[in-house]
């Protein structure tokens, strides 16, 4: 099985698979909103804790390598972004660092430093919470959640079809990739670039031909413009709503109460 399909396998083997997808989605959205609604650093740790706990329960942290790389990439982007924010302080709080380098001016203040940390922690905890949802909810379940909130049928059908055919095209791409490997297609940088370009073009052409054939197959099976659902996922009941509201309110209150508890500049650099 290819690396690309491992995420799907992971979601289908999750302990949280049977949970109401809409409930999970609303829970994650509520936590993410609260996470950015308060200025407390501690809330980001609470959010991170929730995300990691859910991920541990859902998958025992068996994250496919390619997804792990994607998380690292997102984390690197967050660090870079936070770095940029921290050296662009415009306020009048205590200056930590001020210097010129080439045409750039770096101006780090206590506030910009704290803001950068808050954003980094919010981003990291947000990724953890979203991953707990992604690793426990296959796309088809998500489409059913979308159906439950009465999103347009056309949009949902497109999501389902993209999901289905993306895997097919990934499989074909993998076959082409292996074939190229066995024909010395990655022998040197120049050849590799040519090969990757050829594979991309090939996949694009195949996708159009696949869509034609699939249209015929859909007609053959009496497609009426929607995919009927036989097994509905668990419904989002009152219990879910109570959990979501209680969790969101509790975290928000906690955030308001602890807003000034941690000053990262003081904690790390000893600067007030």
């Amino acid at each position, binding site marked *: *099985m290819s690396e690309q*399909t491992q995420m*799907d*396998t992971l979601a*289908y083997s999750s302990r949280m698979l049977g949970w109401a997808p809409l409930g999970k989605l609303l829970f994650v959205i509520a936590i993410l909103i609260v996470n950015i609604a308060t200025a407390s650093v501690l809330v980001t740790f609470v959010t991170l804790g929730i995300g990691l706990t859910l991920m541990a329960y859902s998958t025992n942290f068996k994250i496919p390598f390619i997804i792990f790389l994607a998380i690292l990439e997102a984390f690197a982007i967050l660090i870079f972004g936070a770095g940029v924010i921290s050296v662009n302080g415009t306020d009048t709080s205590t200056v930590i660092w001020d210097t010129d380098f080439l045409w750039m001016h770096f101006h780090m203040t206590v506030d910009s430093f704290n803001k950068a940390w808050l954003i980094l922690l919010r981003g990291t905890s947000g990724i953890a919470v979203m991953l707990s949802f992604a690793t426990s909810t*296959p*796309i*088809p379940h998500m489409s059913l959640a979308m159906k439950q909130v009465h999103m347009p049928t056309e949009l949902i059908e497109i999501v*389902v*079809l993209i*999901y*289905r*055919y993306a*895997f*097919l095209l990934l499989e074909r791409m993998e076959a082409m990739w292996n074939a190229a490997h066995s024909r010395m297609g990655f022998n040197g940088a120049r050849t590799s670039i040519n090969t990757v370009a050829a594979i991309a073009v090939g996949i694009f052409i195949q996708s159009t031909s*696949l869509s034609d*054939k*699939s249209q*015929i*197959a*859909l*007609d*053959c*099976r*009496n*497609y*009426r413009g929607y*995919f*009927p*659902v*036989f*097994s509905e996922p668990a419904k989002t009941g009152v219990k879910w709503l109570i959990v979501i509201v209680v969790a969101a309110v509790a975290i928000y209150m906690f955030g308001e109460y602890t807003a000034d508890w941690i000053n990262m500049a003081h904690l790390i650099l000893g600067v007030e």
Partner: protein
Amino acid sequence: MALFEVRNVTYSYNSRQKRPSLNDISLKVNEGRRTAILGANGAGKSTLFYHFNGIFKPSAGEVLYNDRPLDYSKPALRELRNDICVVVQNPDEQIFSSTVESDVAFGPMSMELPRDEVDTRIREALDMVGMTDYRMRPSTQLSYGQRKRVSLAGALAVRPKVLILDEPTAGLDPQMAREVMELIDQLYCAGTTVILSTHDVDLVYSWAEDIIVLNHGELVYSGEPEEYFSDPEKTAYAGLARPHTFSVNSYVSKMRGLEESPYPRTTSQFIAKMAPEGAKGGHVRIVPVKEGTEAVEKTGAVGAYGYRAKKLVEAKGIEVDYMYDALEMCMQDAVKSKDSVLYCDEVLVDMAVDRIRSLESFGIKAEVIM
């Protein structure tokens, strides 16, 4: 009675095509006959059967279903496609739901059947193709052979009157291919008209009663297989080869100074024809499998024919010698004067008896015990 009649049909995919994909074709497909459409790649086989369910509308000519010209209005096509199911060659083009269950349920749900009925049909269809354990699996996690079975189950769940299969055994291992053919026999015996398109001449020769041969969109032949394969030039013209059994019979009959006719279509029939005069056939005990069927005494090799028979022998722990191609293997035993026991789905019994008795016309009388 002609189920389909194609009258002077011409079809081109686009106006720039120099040669139409189907060129002035006229033919009939009879109800209740095992019909195969034969032809090399690009012969127009798929194009032809997409005319049967109204996917393609002829540029010229007309297609009749049950003696009535096809109505291409939406409601009429919907009704037509509830009757006629096409299983395309590549299962990936056909399976578009995310799980096995949802894909098999697609047809019955689209027919707006009650939920219980849909559930029954899903269970039965998956049972028939041996995919019951995979019901909740995502379709992305299946092997090619499994996907092929699921695509077939999707069609079976609709319970069509006519089942059209495009290269049903392509890409399958030999055992699975035989299982699919057994399933096709089962559907045929249950009253479904089966049309299959293939370029596997051996498969066609052992299975089909009628063949339709196409070459570059032209009709080359329509009728019984023997007449067509007797003409090597005609066979080569369509980019095909003669079936192995047909060729061997032809050569060996000439060498022995025998008549080519009767034409054996299976190995057992061929061996029966070539057996020494006066050779005695064995007994085949047929055990019709229905609810409550019990194991019988083992009087020879044991075979299971049909999916219910296979389930029974598994459930009862019956030791089986022939799990695949069991009828043919029991026939071969009978030709070798050996006795055998064949657990056979009730619906397949008549066909099994006919086939075993057919050995008599090749010189060996095998006795059927019920």
